């Protein structure tokens, strides 16, 4: 597969958008400007971006509690996202969902999810819809390694295979389920070993390499579009910050050397170095992207901070949908 320079630059831009959005949000949380929980996606950018760049706008995705990156990669608006994280009326969810329920149905992004593994059956439902309507749209379930120990994942993976649905399961194996190393939570090292149990193909990919993720997911998506059923892509990756918040070093449950070793493989910087080495893109190209995205983030903060909080009347709005009939 040969990606054009435009595509490569678009992937870079998308990763930078995630990185700066997340680090900005983390700092705002530290200063008390952002309420609630914040699970940062930094370090895993290549997975969301490599996957979403392999999708069409009308393909569906479901996400996790660490979901901002998935929405940004699907094309999410940073101003509305920032406003949502601050609980503002102009936020993606009108301030009703926050970080863990951020979504954009205009982009067929069916939501982050506060329940581990719960997005996976919903992605299967979207896949069912695609097959039911005879559409060639696919749906992608993003989930972590720990999700694969949840019953909902097993049920959904099996059902997708039993009903032969156009679903791609993208596992982000970041080595920890919250604060517990994955090798203490399961005895198989590779999630992909589980794919055979459902009768679907599975492939391991370097989750720090956006091009590799893009290639693996493209193959799985093409297969689903052709009506050949589900597959699983396991991306080996790492979150640079803590499970929650913006601390990265000095954590009791994982050694600093490990964090630093993974940070040395930063998905954005390694991509930049490689593209420059290969003569595809230049340092100037990248600097321009960083500058542009920084300006977008600044504008997003201004938008969010100057936006009003929801009116009291919003409290009960949307509990039920008023039927048109």
């Amino acid at each position, binding site marked *: 597969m040969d990606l054009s320079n435009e595509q490569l630059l678009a992937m870079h831009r998308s990763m930078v958008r995630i990185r700066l959005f997340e680090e900005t949000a983390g700092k705002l949380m530290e200063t008390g400007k952002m309420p609630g929980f914040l699970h940062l996606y930094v370090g895993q950018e290549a997975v969301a971006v490599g996957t979403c760049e392999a999708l069409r706008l009308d393909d569906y995705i479901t996400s996790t509690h660490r979901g901002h990156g998935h929405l940004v990669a699907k094309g999410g608006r940073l101003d509305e996202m920032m406003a949502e994280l601050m609980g503002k009326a102009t936020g993606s969810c009108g301030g009703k969902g926050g970080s863990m329920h951020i979504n954009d149905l205009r982009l067929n992004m*069916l939501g982050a999810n506060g329940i581990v593994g719960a997005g996976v*059956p919903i992605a*299967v439902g979207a896949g*069912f*819809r695609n097959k039911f309507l005879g559409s060639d749209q696919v749906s992608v379930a993003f989930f972590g390694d720990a999700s694969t120990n949840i019953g*909902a994942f097993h049920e*959904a993976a099996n059902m997708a295979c*039993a009903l032969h649905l156009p679903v791609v399961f993208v596992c982000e194996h970041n080595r920890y389920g919250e604060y517990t190393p994955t090798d203490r939570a399961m005895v198989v090292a590779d999630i992909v070993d589980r794919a055979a149990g459902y009768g679907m193909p599975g492939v391991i990919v370097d989750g720090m390499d956006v091009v590799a993720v893009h290639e693996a997911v493209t193959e799985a998506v093409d297969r689903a579009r052709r009506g050949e059923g589900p597959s699983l892509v396991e991306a080996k990756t790492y979150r640079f910050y803590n499970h929650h918040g913006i601390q990265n070093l000095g954590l009791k449950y994982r050694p600093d050397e490990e964090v630093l070793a993974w940070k040395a493989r930063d998905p954005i910087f390694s991509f930049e170095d490689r593209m420059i080495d290969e003569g595809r893109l230049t340092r100037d190209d990248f600097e321009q992207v960083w500058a542009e995205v920084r300006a977008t983030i600044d504008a997003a903060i201004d938008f969010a901070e100057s936006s009003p909080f929801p009116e009291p009347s919003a409290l009960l709005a949307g509990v*039920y949908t008023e039927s048109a009939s």
Partner: protein
Amino acid sequence: MTERSITYVAAFIEAVKLEMDADPTVFIAGEDVGAHGGVFHTFDGVQAQFGERRAVDTPISEQAIIGLGVGAALTGLRPIVDLMFMDFAMVAADQIVNQAAKLKYMFGGTAKLPLTITTAAGAGLSAAAQHSQSLEAPFCHVPGLKVVFPSNAYDVKGLMASCIQDDNPTMMVLHKRMLGARGVVPEGRYAVPLGVANVTREGTDVTVVSYGRTAVECLTAAETLQAEGISVEVVDLRTLSPLDIDTVLASVAKTHRAVVVHEAVRFGGFGAEVAAQISELGFDLLDAPVGRVAAPFSPVPFSPALESLYVPDAARIAEGLRAAVARPGLGR
């Protein structure tokens, strides 16, 4: 023209087929719902008429069944997903309570979730404690869901049509022992609106509020008490959430006494909510405390000898009504 009498289950199937016929985005999915037509034959003939594409047998995977419905509803279809026994709803509780009920709110009102969950509740078949429960109360406690529990063939057809047409997740609870009960049911499409109770018998001395199978037992009890000179008004709630408290209060304004009846256990049951609302909103109407007749606080027993003690019947309801009437009132 003679009126047509069909069973509760036949009325349910008719609603499913008519709505599927009217709307190509409606489908059914669940364990055994296809060729077999469901363990209670609640989907008999649906696959024969609409094919495997729209009548889908699934694995025994309750979370994934509801998740299939949530994902399909969120993306534009109008699914009916079946949970067979209501006890199994607890296996799928995350997808019902945390996902189906809440997504539209958490998404800031942009999502629509036209999902109907069908299930069968109730004791009386010696099915023991994991296949006999009436678990409506915990689902009524969840904002975002609508809960329907019809007592007769006419209502089940009209309420099922409303559930399917509603843009919110609904739980249609069938009572297992009602499936063969016959009633007069029109042939064509009609809807019984959600959230509207029905006065199924008029009376002046005491109001009895119920739903599902016990709403029918209440009619029998009322007949018994009529012979004793006690006039009972029966309010069949039909929909539990949203609750039509106005119809209940209008009845209590007439009778000044109320008893709430259900088959679920009394403690923390739905009757407690109804009783509390009558007391809060209608305190000055009452001549006696609101009574409750319900199952004792135990799992449903297996042995018929014990199960018959457990399930409230017309005789126990009549006792409860007599007690309510026996309280001295204000003589109004």
